């Protein structure tokens, strides 16, 4: 007769009470796993939206470029950086930036022009597939332009609209060209939505007379490397330039991720504590009901440690069964939410946080930690919760305990 078998049989002495606690711990575990998977899904999606759409995990700029975004603050040797990234099999997209005016008919607006290499953007980021209307830029320069959705709305531009561009070129001259709208982005964050105008790198160079100036190289390993490792690599490749991680570039998103992490822990701890109280209540009642029996066991020579072990094993058996059932239930719920997701557009429409657009379909992300953390915590809290009743049983005076009615 080992402690486990003894504990297991003791659990079923009061079937109803055990079933109630079992249900409570099972549901707590299931809810914990499902909500953790949902929160993690949100975080994974937040990070992936922040990095894979357009920002990248790390960006390299000339020193102080981000402070004034001057067209003259270009990277000193972008070719070396791009070559180095290619050798390390890290995808990189070079970008040129310049300000100007765009007009369609009588409507005009300020815009930030992005001079991009369509092929590198396509292979490095998801922006090329993020089209609401039309198509991404062609391989060859063709005076095509893609607009952010709010900019397009304010210009009343549609795919095929002719768009007049006026810019201050790098040589001081006035650049003036006619482009055609080839596409309009879906919601991609406030900065892009309001003023992004993407054009081919060659068109940009011609328009802005900017020569071989490149203002930004965005690196994206798509999770193959940690952000910190990638930043270290970027710093090696561009020692005199400024290297920023996505967390530095998008502090609001980074703060949100950190906040959610804290929130998950607080939320989880509340559930775990509630479940732990349930286990403690069950074990306390079971202990009080069996005081004479503990007296007998002590009289027969069981040490306090043996009694603590027996009570703790009983609680662990309950917790193990409950977490097993809770894990199965939680995984089933998480799987559904991973595959189907929750459509939040019914309540919130499309939304963005810190300038990063979020998919309104909120999906769970199932990972090892999503299961392991709640299960381990639940087992630990059950064990801890059993120590108080176990201590009570272990300290009983055998004579008084045996004669307790």
């Amino acid at each position, binding site marked *: *007769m080992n402690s486990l078998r*003894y504990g297991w*049989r*003791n659990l079923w*002495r009061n079937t109803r009470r055990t079933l109630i606690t079992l249900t409570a711990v099972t549901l707590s575990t299931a809810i914990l796993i499902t909500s953790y998977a949902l929160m993690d899904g949100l975080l994974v999606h937040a990070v992936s939206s922040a990095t894979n759409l357009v920002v990248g995990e790390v960006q390299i700029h000339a020193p102080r470029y981000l402070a004034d975004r001057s067209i003259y603050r270009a990277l000193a040797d972008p070719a070396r950086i791009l070559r180095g990234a290619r050798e390390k099999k890290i995808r990189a997209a070079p970008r040129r930036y310049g300000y100007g005016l765009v007009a369609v008919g009588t409507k005009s607006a300020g815009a930030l022009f992005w001079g991009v290499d369509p092929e590198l953007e396509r292979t490095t980021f998801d922006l090329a597939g993020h089209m609401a209307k039309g198509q991404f830029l062609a391989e060859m320069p063709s005076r095509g332009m893609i607009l952010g959705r709010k900019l397009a709305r304010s210009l009343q531009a549609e795919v095929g609209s002719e768009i007049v561009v006026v810019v201050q070129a790098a040589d001081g001259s006035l650049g003036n060209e006619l482009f055609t709208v080839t596409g309009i982005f879906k919601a991609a964050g406030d900065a892009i939505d309001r003023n992004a105008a993407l054009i081919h790198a060659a068109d940009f160079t011609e328009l802005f007379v900017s020569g071989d100036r490149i203002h930004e190289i965005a690196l994206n390993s798509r999770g193959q490397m940690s952000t910190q490792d990638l930043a270290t690599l970027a710093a090696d490749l561009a020692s005199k330039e400024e290297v920023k991680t996505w967390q530095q570039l998008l502090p609001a998103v980074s703060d949100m991720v950190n906040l959610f992490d804290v929130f998950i822990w607080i939320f989880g701890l509340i559930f775990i504590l509630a479940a732990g109280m349930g286990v403690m209540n069950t074990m306390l009642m079971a202990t009080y009901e069996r005081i*004479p*029996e503990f007296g*007998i*066991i*002590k*009289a*027969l*020579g*069981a*040490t*306090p440690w*043996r009694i603590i072990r027996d009570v703790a094993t009983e609680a662990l058996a309950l917790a193990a069964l409950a977490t097993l059932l809770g894990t199965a239930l939680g995984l089933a719920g998480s799987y559904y939410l991973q595959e189907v997701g929750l459509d939040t557009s019914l309540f919130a429409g499309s939304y963005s946080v810190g300038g990063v657009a979020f998919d309104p379909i909120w999906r769970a992300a199932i990972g090892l930690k999503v299961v392991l953390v709640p299960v381990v915590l639940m087992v630990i809290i059950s064990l801890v919760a059993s120590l108080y009743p176990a201590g009570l049983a272990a300290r009983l005076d*055998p*004579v008084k305990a*045996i004669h307790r009615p």
Partner: protein
Amino acid sequence: MKTIVRLQNVTKDYGQGQALTHALRGVNLEIESGEFTAMAGPSGSGKSTLLNIIGGLDRPTSGKVEVDGREIDSLSNTDLGVLRRDRLGFIFQNYNLIPVLTALENAEYVLMLQGMPTGARRDRVREVLQEVGLEGLENRYPRQLSGGQQQRVAIARAIVSEPALVLADEPTANVDSKTGLALLDLMHRLNEEKGVTFFFSTHEEAVMKAARRLLQLEDGVICNDGPNHM
């Protein structure tokens, strides 16, 4: 003969002030190995208190208690537990079996506490259950056994580890007289054939008659002690 129990001027008081009760008043007692001793006395005479003190379940207020050569006062609670586990057997009035354990598991409980390997203890327990007449009932739970059968399990549990002394608190009080006599016969046989030392309390005349030595306890004092002439 080895002296198993030696009590010198043992007192036990409960309560304080006006509620102070003298449960034992200067008890002197020696029990030797192989004895079959009964202790008689009315309710409240201190029989259970004396058994508890000898069994290391309670400590005396004053006096010296020696069990199996060890002075109880010098032992910690854990050491007392070990003494009970290894050298003493207990039979309680209400059987006090563990309801979720079968007859075999109840009887083997002490051996399990002692750390005896499963195979060896199962063999030993089966042998003892056979001795107490419970062959074939090993896998029954206490609720599936009669009062007499439950007390036989309790006896098996008390003697299975071959203790130096078995203490029995009114072991036949909760069974009918026929069953009580059968239990008494069993204890007698174990004493004679196996040399198990028994010290038990009772207020039943039939049980007293079976003892070879009879103590009379009144108001916490042994007023009579000697060979049984009943």
